């Protein structure tokens, strides 16, 4: 049996060097442990057998929530959904992102699961990702060559794969400051009311002025190998009053963006249809939150 090492460094620098060293070593792969709600399940199933587990929860920066003076938010990659829920301000500014993060698993899972883990697990169906994409979140990663930032939608590379390079660790998400008249929302379709993986997930982020949409971003999950930024759907919404024609055009753009698979959770036809349905419903909630002014 392979020897497993557990490390809990207190600084990012230590974590990165341990991660890089372990990935280079012959003793097998290394895994970053945030909430662990995916990693422990994969270890138990034998899908991954890490030689080294690096727990990043003792690092302050990855567990902090900070509202910056300019109104932007920095969310540590390992912040749990329950912690984010308890933040006095975050849910007021980004209700859609919060509801997406809070849909990752049950209340029990919420006590551990983090948006960083959700992103790096790279499931096409991760709930927080479409909402983060819609929010225009930018992630900060740190690796052996230092720090870099990239848009959240650039992280997933395919089911179970990310674009992070060896030794790189996801540090945080930065969500931009909100102009007045902004609102976001996230809806997903699941067969039950809870405890399911999204069959389709849809995040919409709008800014409205004078009853018209002035800015929009749309994220879709579980309809392609990676969560999608659907720019055509956003274009269809921008400039509109969210009238039925604009909503239908955006829904059609969502359907067109779909490239799903048939699997135990849903069919191609069903997922494609639902992507359009959810776009309309999510946009309506986001508009409500934006004040429809």
């Amino acid at each position, binding site marked *: 049996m392979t020897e497993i090492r557990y490390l809990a460094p207190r600084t990012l620098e230590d974590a990165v060097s341990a991660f890089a060293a372990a990935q280079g070593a012959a003793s097998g792969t290394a895994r970053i442990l945030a909430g662990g709600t995916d990693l422990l399940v994969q270890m*138990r199933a034998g899908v991954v057998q890490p030689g080294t587990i690096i727990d990043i929860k003792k690092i302050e920066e990855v567990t902090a929530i900070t509202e910056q003076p300019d109104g932007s938010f920095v969310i540590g990659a390992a912040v749990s959904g329950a912690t984010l829920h308890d933040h006095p301000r975050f849910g007021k500014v980004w209700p859609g992102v919060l509801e997406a993060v809070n849909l990752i698993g*049950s209340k029990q899972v919420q006590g551990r699961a983090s948006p960083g883990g959700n992103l790096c697990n790279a499931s096409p169906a991760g709930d927080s990702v479409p909402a983060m994409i819609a929010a225009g979140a930018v992630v900060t990663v740190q690796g052996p060559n230092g720090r870099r930032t990239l848009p959240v939608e650039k992280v997933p590379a395919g089911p179970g794969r990310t674009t992070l390079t060896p030794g790189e660790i996801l540090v945080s998400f930065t969500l931009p400051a909100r102009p007045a008249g902004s609102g976001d929302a996230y809806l997903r379709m699941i067969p039950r009311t809870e405890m399911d993986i999204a069959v389709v997930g849809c995040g919409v982020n709008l800014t409205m002025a004078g009853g018209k949409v002035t800015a929009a971003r749309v994220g879709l999950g579980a309809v392609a190998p990676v969560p999608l930024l659907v720019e055509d759907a956003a274009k269809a919404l921008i400039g509109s009053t969210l009238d039925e024609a604009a909503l239908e055009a955006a829904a059609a753009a969502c359907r067109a963006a779909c490239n799903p698979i048939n699997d135990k959770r849903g069919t191609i036809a069903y997922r494609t249809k639902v992507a359009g349905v959810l776009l309309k419903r999510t946009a309506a909630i986001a508009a409500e939150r934006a004040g429809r002014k």
Partner: protein
Amino acid sequence: MAKVHVTTTINGEPTEFLCEPQQSLLDALRNNLGLTGTKEGCGTGDCGACSITLDGRLTCSCLVLAVEADGHSIGTIEGMAQGDKLHPLQRKFLEMAALQCGICTPGVLIAARALLEKNPNPTETEVRFGLAGNLCRCTGYDKIVRAVMDTAAEMRETAS
């Protein structure tokens, strides 16, 4: 395999144990510490039978490594009653027959306590969503939901 020394607090008692690095907290509670009140129904975080609190936060002990408990405080079903005095939820579950086979009951009670600590006056919908992570196959949930709501009402009365 080299074992790891863990220093933790379980139900208020300082506790030390040795575990393997990949061992789940659930496994350590049950097999290293003899705390078998916490149950395993799935091992994948989908049934809630292994619910515990970690620093007061509800979680599934099957999704936590035992080594992660180091320096933290754990609450299990064995610590829910105070001596021979049952927690109001435990008492109501008995009075209102909110259990049949009882295997999900420890997890449901831990989750219900966490729910009421956050929300002392939940609606039926809030109770149902608050307990959605706890599968029960016997009761159809009816009597569980009623018992939690009744307990909440009684605890509010006692508090006021």
